[in-house]
Structures are given as structure tokens and as C-alpha cells.
């Protein structure tokens, strides 16, 4: 919707993007400075920066696609801001639908209401950080100093829980939608279980091959790029097999 591309909101978007970049740069420099104080090497920083930059490219593309999907309803500026700061396509689209009841075009009142719902709903996490996180983190650090084993067990449990939750959702969701060709009502995206499971398997396979190349042929450089390569390879396979399982109507 061209009429929703307000210059004022674009300027706000630019300021927000600048703040996000400034915050990241400040934290990056402070972390490097502290790292040097405790004897970390430039090599470690270089590796962390390079791998993180390469890793972030592929998962960022769906965020851009998300803006493309949302701009059909909200114009370009609002989705840009919403997906630059804490927000996700599914949640933002749900907020729009909660306000509009699925109306094809938003009225001015609906648009303002949608942006208000999106803003209020995500406020609790950052607000918690601004008010309570320092105290909470102090307790985490106390536990880390007093009982490292216990803290490691908690961290390990949270990480394994996250992994277990995501993999079970992907696997079981995949098995229950093996032949699905219907689009999701809100976003209009089709998630086919067969493609999901094949993508998962391909990603596992590529990283396994990278592991073999690294160990057997002693190609250590591959370690830094194994994960981004696996993601990119799996996404390419998904791109080519999706039309086979979900023929275009």
C-alpha cells in the first residue's frame, strides 16, 4: 500500500536502525576490550566476527521476505521498523489480523490500532531488561561463582530444552503435514512436511560431510563455514524441491 509509506515513519525507521547499529558497535567494542584484558587473542575475535557475519546472512533473508509479505498490508516503512527491532513476521501478521478481523484493506483507525498492538505486545521483554535484569543477572552470576556445576547444569538444561522443543516441533509438525499444500490463513505461506523433513535431513547430512572432510582430510578451515554452508545447502534444496511437493496452482 503506497499511501502507507509515510516519510515521518521512514525517518523514524532510519533513526531506529542507527540506534540498533550504534548499540551493537558499542557492545562489540566493549566485549573486545574486555576480552583483551583477560588474555583473549585477536585470532579468537576475528574468528567470532567472521563466522557470525557469514552465519547471519542466510537467516536474514526470510526477514526481508517477511517485510515483503507485510508491505502488502502495511506499506514499507512500518514492517521495516517492526522487523528491525524485536518482532517476527508471524506475530506482526497476527497482530494485524487481530485488529482487522481479516479485512483485505486496513482503514486508518485499524492501521494505528495495529501498530499500537504490535508495540505494546512486545514491550515486556525489553522493559524487564531495563528494570529487573541487572538484579536477575546478579543472582545468575552469584550462582555461577558459588556453584558453577549447578549453573552449568541449568544452562545445559535450557539449551537442551530449546533444542528438544525445536526439533520435536519440526519433526512432528513435518510428519503431520507430509502432504500439506494449503497456505496458512494469515501469512499465505505453505509449509509442506515432506520439504521440512528433507531440508532437516539435508542440513544434517551437509554438516556431517563437513565434519568428515575436516577430520579425514584435515581441512580445518571448513570448521568456520560448516554451519552457514549447511544452512545454505539445505535452503537451496528446499527451493528446488518445494515446487515438486507443492505444485503452483
Amino acid at each position, binding site marked *: 500500500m503506497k499511501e502507507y509509506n509515510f516519510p515521518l515513519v521512514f525517518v523514524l525507521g532510519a533513526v531506529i536502525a542507527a*540506534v540498533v547499529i550504534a548499540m551493537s558497535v558499542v557492545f562489540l567494542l566493549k566485549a573486545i576490550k574486555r576480552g583483551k584484558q583477560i588474555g*583473549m587473542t585477536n585470532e579468537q575475535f576475528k574468528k*567470532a566476527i567472521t563466522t557470525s557475519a557469514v*552465519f547471519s546472512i542466510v537467516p536474514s533473508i526470510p526477514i526481508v521476505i517477511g517485510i515483503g509479505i507485510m508491505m502488502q498490508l502495511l506499506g514499507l516503512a512500518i514492517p521495516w521498523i517492526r522487523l528491525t527491532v524485536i518482532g517476527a513476521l508471524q506475530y506482526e501478521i497476527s497482530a494485524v489480523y487481530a485488529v482487522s478481523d481479516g479485512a483485505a484493506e486496513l482503514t486508518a483507525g485499524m492501521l494505528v490500532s495495529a501498530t499500537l498492538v504490535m508495540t505494546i505486545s512486545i514491550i515486556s521483554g525489553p522493559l524487564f531488561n531495563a528494570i529487573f535484569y541487572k538484579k536477575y*543477572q546478579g543472582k545468575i552470576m552469584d550462582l555461577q561463582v558459588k556453584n558453577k556445576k549447578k549453573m*552449568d547444569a541449568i544452562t*545445559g538444561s535450557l539449551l537442551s*530444552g530449546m533444542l528438544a522443543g*525445536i526439533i*520435536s516441533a519440526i519433526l512432528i509438525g513435518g510428519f503431520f503435514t507430509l502432504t500439506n499444500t494449503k497456505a496458512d490463513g494469515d501469512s499465505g505461506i505453505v509449509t509442506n512436511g515432506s520439504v521440512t523433513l528433507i531440508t532437516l535431513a539435508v542440513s544434517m547430512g551437509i554438516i556431517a560431510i563437513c565434519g568428515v572432510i575436516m577430520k579425514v582430510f584435515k581441512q580445518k578451515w571448513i570448521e568456520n563455514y560448516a554451519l552457514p554452508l549447511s544452512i545454505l545447502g539445505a535452503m537451496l534444496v528446499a527451493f528446488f524441491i518445494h515446487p515438486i511437493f507443492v505444485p503452483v496452482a
Partner: protein
Amino acid sequence: MKKDQEILENVENQVFDNTEEIQNEEANLIENNNVDDKKLEGQIKYNNDIHKFGRIFTLIALGLMCFVPIFTAISVKSGPDWGRLAKTIPFTLGFLAIGLIEAFSYAPLLGVGGQYLSFITGNISNLKLPCAINAQQVAKVEQGTEEHEIITTIAIAVSSIVTTLIIIIGLIPLAIYQQKIVEVLKPISPYVMPAIFGALTMVLIAVYWKNSIAPFLLCCVVAIIMHSIGMGGTASISTMVMVGMVFSIVSNYIIYNREKIKEKLVTKFGKNKSKHKDDVTADSSEETELEKAETKADSSEDLKVEKAEAKAEDEIRE
């Protein structure tokens, strides 16, 4: 007499060497403690600094985010539709609760810097956390150390910069070829999570397989039930992450404390009393054996020292 003097000198030298060794050890210990204190002091200072900047940036970002509905209202010259807003209260409350739970549960995984950055830039489970885990593996840092925290912050900061720039760059073709780009790339967007977590699972499973089995099976059961009763949409990745974390904390608590829990249950219900008694007897007999062996070793060492001293004294007397 000459022999006596030699023995005396030897004993004195030994005593001197031992004292010097003890003094060196004490000096090393004090030095190590000083280094640890300095490191802890530095870490606290760094954390306070990050908290200060984190809070400032969070409040600035929150303030700017709040301008979005205000600027939109000014631009369209209209206020919100209050009736429709009222209808969305359950939706808003639900997301407010999820935000709080996420802030609590992700905190130990993201570290101080990562927590502030992630809760401004979002995309935690699908981008920031996997990116941080990848960087930790590549930089080979031990979990729970300050190095781990530093690498996590670096990874999340770099990831936030890259994503923000990619979004800005992506806006240009989107503005020109919006429909074509969306048509081509839209179908593959649901497959980003399997693409990331297929590979990441292979990396992490070697370390966390023991902790993951029980919560994984429980999550599968929950997901199967949800899909079977037609609530598959609720068993989404974001919901299952929270379910998985709860299951994992509970199941790992049980696994790590199974002996204590077993003892408590036995005491409470009085079942398998004799078996428990046998275990306790076996344990205590093992302990006694160990204690005996230690005492024996200690006493034999003492005896040796006493004997050596007596021998030295005898030699002096002679």
C-alpha cells in the same frame, strides 16, 4: 663430631628448603588469589558497564518504538479504533507474558550483552542464539567462563549489525520488485528453521544428548497430542521451545538428584526398607574401608617420619 655436624647441617638445610618451598607456595597462592580478585573485579566492572549502556539503549529503543503508532497516527490523521483495540487485549496479554518468560529463560544462555541486544533486535531462537552457539564452537570457549560471555556478545552484536544492514539493502529491491521477490522467495521461508537446526543439532548433540533425550521424547508426546486433537498450530516452534525448557529443567533435576529423591521417597513411604538398608550398609562399609585405608596411610607416613627423626637423633647422640 664431624658426622654430627654434617647430619645437623643436612637437617637444617632440609628444614630451610621446606620453609622456602612453603613460602613460595604461599606467595603463588596469594598471587593467584590477587589475579582472581582482579579478574572478578574487572568482570564486575565490565558487567556494570554493559548494564549501564544496555539500559540506556533499551530505553532509547523502547521510546523510539513507541513513536511508531504516534507517527502513524499523525501521518494518517486518525486515532486508534478503540473498540477493535479492546478486542485484542487477550492477544496483547498473551504476548506480554511470552515476552517475560523469554526474558527470564533466555538470560542464562545469552549473557549480559547478548540479553540486551537480543531483546531489542529480536529473532532470538532462529538467528541470535544459533549464531552465538556457532561462534562459541568455532572460538572453542568453555561454557560458564567470561570468554564464553565475550564471544556470545561479539556474535550477537555482529549478527545484529549484519541483519540490520541486510534489511536496509533488501528494502531497495523490495521497493522496486516487491511482488516478484516475494513470489520467488516466499515459499522457502518456512524452511529456515529446519535448515539451521538440522546442522546445529548435529553440532550440539555430542555434548547434550544425555540432557536432551527425556525432554525431546516428552516434547514429541505433547506435539503428537496437539496435532492429533487439531491444535497443531499451537505446537509451533516458539511454544515448543518453552515447553522443552520446562521439561528439560524438570527431567534433568530428577536425573541429577535421583539418589536424593530416591532416599526421600523411601523415607516417606517406607518401601524397600531392607534394600535401602543394605545399600546404606554397603555404602558405609565402603566409606569405612576408605577411611581405614586413609588412616593407615597417614599413620604409616607419620610412623616413617617419626622413625627418620628418631634415627637422626640417635645418630646425633652416637
